[in-house]
């Protein structure tokens, strides 16, 4: 039990600590791909440090929701980070691993972010919240269906059972899995606010989704939200890597096995980062009203995956 707690704690800390590094790495790859010199991979840490040291300014008419939301969002994201498989299978760690709960927690954090955006009453905040909710109403059902497809294969909604089942049966090239994998990637892009759905690098308030909601945040509040967004990206990419890319997670807690598996996971993450960067360089941001089409497509693909599983069994 003790070791499970320790591993669980270590794994979660690793995700939280490495999320800025991972985002910095994506930025670096992107710069290289566009023939320009990149900021250091550690730049995101410096940004966070800067924000934590800055004064936090709060609008006069902000309510408790506005102050409370950053802490809540960060805590929820950390909680989810503790539930997902990184190197060690979740069965060897503590805590909940239910996929429905994970989707629900993401929903809760988004709900509070949108509330906070509405709370201060600026037009950009409202616009961002309304757009975020438009995206969410389509992305969340699609995410649920994606999780359901996996759950039906493994006959469980627990992540540890799902990962164990997928490894044991080597289901990675199953057509049903392929559909779900493509759909999951599309959902992940929408959920984490990357191009082509949202542009995290833009300064144009009128085009923003996620950034528009946090325009009024500053100092440590902003740092927490940004950090949470970075963790969220790493969570989605890790989920994708461990659910849809081959190589099983380990169950034994030996140092050598963990080292080997850690290496494999890192390779998978780097590969996914590269794919993400390729896509982001090649694509322009979608017209806002085309985003629903993308998410409908993801939903249909998930449904197709689900159907295919039902039919072939």
């Amino acid at each position: 039990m003790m070791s499970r707690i320790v591993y669980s704690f270590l794994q979660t800390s690793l995700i939280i600590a490495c999320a800025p590094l991972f985002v910095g790495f994506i930025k670096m790859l992107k710069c290289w791909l566009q023939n320009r010199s990149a900021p250091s991979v550690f730049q995101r840490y410096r940004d966070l440090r800067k924000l934590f040291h800055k004064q936090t300014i709060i609008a006069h008419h902000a309510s408790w929701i506005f102050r409370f939301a950053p802490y809540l969002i960060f805590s929820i994201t950390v909680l989810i980070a503790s539930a997902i498989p990184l190197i060690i299978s979740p069965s060897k760690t503590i805590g909940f691993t239910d996929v429905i709960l994970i989707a629900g927690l993401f929903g809760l954090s988004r709900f509070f972010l949108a509330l906070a955006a509405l709370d201060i009453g600026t037009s950009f905040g409202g616009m961002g919240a309304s757009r975020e909710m438009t995206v969410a109403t389509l992305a969340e059902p699609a995410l649920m269906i994606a999780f359901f497809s996996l759950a039906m294969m493994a006959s469980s909604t627990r992540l540890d059972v799902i990962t164990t089942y997928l490894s044991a049966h080597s289901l990675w090239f199953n057509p049903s899995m392929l559909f779900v994998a493509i759909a999951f990637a599309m959902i992940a892009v929408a959920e984490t606010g990357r191009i082509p759905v949202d542009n995290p690098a833009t300064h144009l308030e009128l085009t923003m989704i996620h950034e528009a909601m946090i325009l009024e945040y500053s100092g440590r509040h902003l740092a927490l939200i940004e950090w949470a967004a970075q963790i969220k990206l790493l969570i989605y990419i890790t989920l994708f890597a461990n659910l849809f890319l081959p190589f099983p997670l380990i169950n034994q807690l030996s140092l050598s096995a963990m080292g080997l598996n850690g290496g494999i996971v890192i390779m998978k993450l780097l590969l996914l980062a590269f794919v993400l960067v390729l896509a982001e360089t090649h694509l322009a941001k979608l017209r806002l009203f085309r985003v629903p089409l993308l998410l409908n497509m993801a939903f249909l693909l998930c449904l197709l995956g689900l159907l295919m599983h039902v039919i072939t069994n």
Partner: protein
Amino acid sequence: MGTPNILFRLLEELNNRQLLKADSSIDYCPAVDIEPIHWLAVTHMIQQYQARFAGLWVKELDNAFYVIACFYIEKNYLFVRTALHKKTPLRLPSLSCLYLASSRFERHAHDLFGIEFTGNEDSRRWTRHQAWSANQYPLRKDFPKAGYSTGKTPTDKTYPFLQATGEGVCEVPVGPIHAGIIEPGHFRFQIAGEDILYLEERLGYLHKGIEKTAEGKDISDLIHLASHVSGDCAVSYAWSACMAIESALQITAPDRALFIRAILAERERIANHLWDAAAICNDVGFAFAYYQLGRLRELWLRTNAQLFGHRLLMNCLAISGVQKDYLPESAVQVIRQELKPLEKEVGELERILNSNASLQNRLKTTGILSSDIAQAVGALGYVGKASGIDFDVRRDAPYAPYHQFKIDSPVLSEGDVAARLSIRLKEIVNSLQLIDALLKDLPAGDYQTGWKMPHRATSGIGIVESWRGELLTFVGLDSLGKISRYFPRDPSWFNWLALERLIYHDIVPDFPVCNKSINGSYSGCDL
């Protein structure tokens, strides 16, 4: 410039109807003097001849205010002038019922001269924010140049915007301070969901009193001022001011200087088009093109700094020439060496942009400006050219040295953001070829000639094709050779109107890219 038939017929008709004043003595080319009561009737007749409205300004002289309107009629400019004596009520009928674009010029004239334009549906102040009160008119000669300002200008909170009401309709104020490094301007959206019901611009935040500052300046100081009116248009502004003064003094710059001016103007066009194309791509999240086009522009600007001493080419022009002989053989070589590689790179980038489905999907059908509306507002430059208005001063009302060259001016009919981007890329290539041709024929000789002051009050007009489109400058000189009036009319006076209209069928998140594709000058309009 020979008088073409259509203008001749118009003048004849005006004369037959006895609308022209008997003593029509004006010192710039085709111009008519009329009585104030005929102001609307004459303009109406001019409109019947398919004339385009090209600006309106006021000049104070002795005991009268002269209101001058400019029209473009088939390869010729026509100036219509009327005098309002100070003892009579300063009132003229508004032309806004005939030409949409005249409204803002009239509001500007009202704020600065106190001339009332009756029948203008929009009688709100325009240039005046809170820096001076409603009964002060800064451009009148009796207003002191230092102004009456006492410190900080109060916030302008009381401008009555047009408001939409209804369920789910809300108002979104954007600016005047924006997130990017751009000039200040306020946009007021009335929206329902993401759909834009109405967009209204509120400019004037950059009013610097350029017109007032210019008064009393020496000619050479005016050229210096002109190249700072709108930073990205330094050459065009300076050139049109030079041209206006040269026409007033009846002097001409030597050929070599004219060629150098043209090369400078084309370099300015290329630099700005590169940067605009980059920014359009960036606004839709296509960062690759932003950095590549930005890189090309940066290299181009460095050459500007190396050869002309200034990245944005400020202060390169002088009356009757240029500041110095910028193009010894070595400089010509440097410029030549850059032309082909840039053309090749721009061609390659254009291919990438055109073949990227995601980018094209984003730019095509976004912000469509129909040809009719473009015509109605009098859109100029790339905005007009992308909406089927085939007009380029260099070709249609040519000035030296362009009259010696064949000017290819691209024109498209789609009128969307993609078309405006495409026009820019085509113009870059055309300008590169033009620079090559200019360098081939670059005449030897002086880069400046001497000139004498005429010692009588005179005035002149300069019209050039800036990178944004037709740029017109009016300069008045007093008998001491000092500037008595300076009015540069930026093409953005018209293109800003186009922006308000092309956004109707679009949604809020598409506004930034539409705005960028117009890229109106704030500084050039606020003056």
